[in-house]
């Protein structure tokens, strides 16, 4: 496919990627969920279930784990954002790809979020809000200092553009 036809092509300045610590955070969450799946497996082993079923369960669970582990890496690498003169671009997604363009003048609020695990690993999420509920512009996996700086820059630009009305 020629590059001009790619709807998700990077802008001139290219995409800024997010930290790979995001993948670590998401894999830890995945591993925690898997503790439950493994516990179910142990319980199943105590029941008089045929061996074959148990093996099937283990194989299915393990392949889901491997696949999710791998897709998390790809998904985190798929995140990118670009600050242009008048708008912010955020790209994400592996299976379903998304690109959001938010002009600075339309931003109503910029949020900075970090859960307990995020804080442990040193990452944060910057989320943009507009008057539309469907605007889906969140940039996860930013280093806290970068995230704070980005938030301040976006807020300042938003104010600049809005006050010029």
């Amino acid at each position, binding site marked *: *496919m020629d590059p*001009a*036809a*790619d*709807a*998700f*092509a990077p802008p001139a300045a290219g995409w800024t990627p997010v930290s790979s610590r995001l993948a670590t955070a998401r894999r830890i969450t995945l591993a925690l969920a898997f503790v439950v799946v493994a516990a179910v497996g142990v319980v199943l082993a105590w029941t008089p279930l045929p061996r074959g079923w148990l093996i099937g369960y283990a194989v299915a669970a393990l392949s889901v784990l491997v696949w999710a582990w791998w897709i998390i890496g790809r998904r985190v690498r798929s995140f990118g954002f670009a600050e242009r003169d*008048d*708008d912010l671009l955020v790209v994400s997604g592996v*299976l*379903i*790809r*998304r*690109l*959001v*363009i*938010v*002009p600075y*003048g*339309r931003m109503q609020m910029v949020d900075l979020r970090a859960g307990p695990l995020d804080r442990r690993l040193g990452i944060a999420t910057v989320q943009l809000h*507009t*008057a*539309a*509920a*469907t*605007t*889906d*512009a969140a940039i996860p996996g930013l280093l806290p200092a970068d995230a704070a700086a980005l938030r301040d820059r976006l807020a300042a630009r938003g104010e600049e*553009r809005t006050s*010029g*009305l």
Partner: protein
Amino acid sequence: MTQPRRTNPLSPLVQAAPAMPAVALFLIGPGAGLVERSGVPLAVVVVAGAVLGYAVFVGVAWLAWWRRTFWIDADGDLRLDSGLLQRSARRLQLSRLQSVDIVSPFVARLAGLVEVRVEVAGAGDSRILLRYLARAEADELRGHILELARREGEAESAQPDGGGLADPPGPAEVLAAVPARRLLAGLLLRSATAGLLVATVLLLVVTAFTQGPAGILLALVTGGLPILSVVTEFLANYGFRIARVPEGLRIQRGLLSTQSRTIPPDRVHALSIISPLLWRRWDWVRVSVTIAGVEGDDVRPDVLIPVAPRAQALRLIAEVLPDVDVDALAFVSAPAPARWRSPLAWRLLACAITPQVIATRSGRLTRRTSLAPHARVQSVRVTQGPWERSLGLASLHADVAPGPVSLTGRHLAEGQVRPLAQEETDLMRRARLLR
């Protein structure tokens, strides 16, 4: 500026009205044991109890009415002091007025009274409900408030061209009215309703042959839901009239309780022209709108016209979106591969961008053309699912304020989507700068 005054003295009688059936129901239901023990006939107790309960509630409502006053103060704010024991003083800045509406609930209408709702922009406590005023007084108050709001709004923005004030406050010009028969026919022939009704008939026929009781139950659901929706929509939109007034478009509608809402044209964020399959032989359409407003406002209008000939609907749209010719939109259609993703509707899927608006088209059974002015679009999104990717397609979304309208140009050629998104972003920015 006005003197503090009370609402209509008949208000307590109306406000206490729900107490009568409530007390009667209590005596028939949970209180029945008490009644039996007393040995008095049930009917006597119920009637006496209802009257007595009503009297008590009227008394309480009367005290509240006595302590409730409203006025417009020297700063041009609408004030409401109320409360029996816990006094509250509410103050609305009319320069931030969003809407003044007159609603007449059923019981109030019997007494010839109406409710006035005044809303200003802002979160939380941003409205005053005046229950109840006589019709004439309410109309006069509304005119006064709108006049004040316009004057203050102009003083604040100091526009050289006053516009609104110069308009003569002449009589409202009725732009469209919906006859009851057309409304009923339109509601019955909506795609989902008609489909469910046909399914009900089929189910009943099948049940008659097989005599299975499950079919009856299913028929109750498939038949009951559409009938319920037709009845509620019919009651709500009966006598629908839309008129041009100096403040915008005024919509009046309703059978059991009439509603009067005014839409300022600059609060229309997006609209959809919807034409169900069975309406097309008469060329009827429905127009739904997204109006920006306060959150949790349950009676915000979402329909510009429930059913009307297309030409009439387009004239109404011209009132809120001037300079937009809906029939002359230059649509970019979805390419042939889109048929594999959306086999029925693919020929209609399209997106158009003009200097004023972005428009999208979709739907096979129910066709839908949605429009939003660039100044109202909040952000642009491009999405692509795996299936779309394998066909070289992508979808374009224009995000607008929450409401019944959403704009999605589905399954367009991937090569066209990004340039369209870029064009829309540029137009959005410029549209905002112009305001």
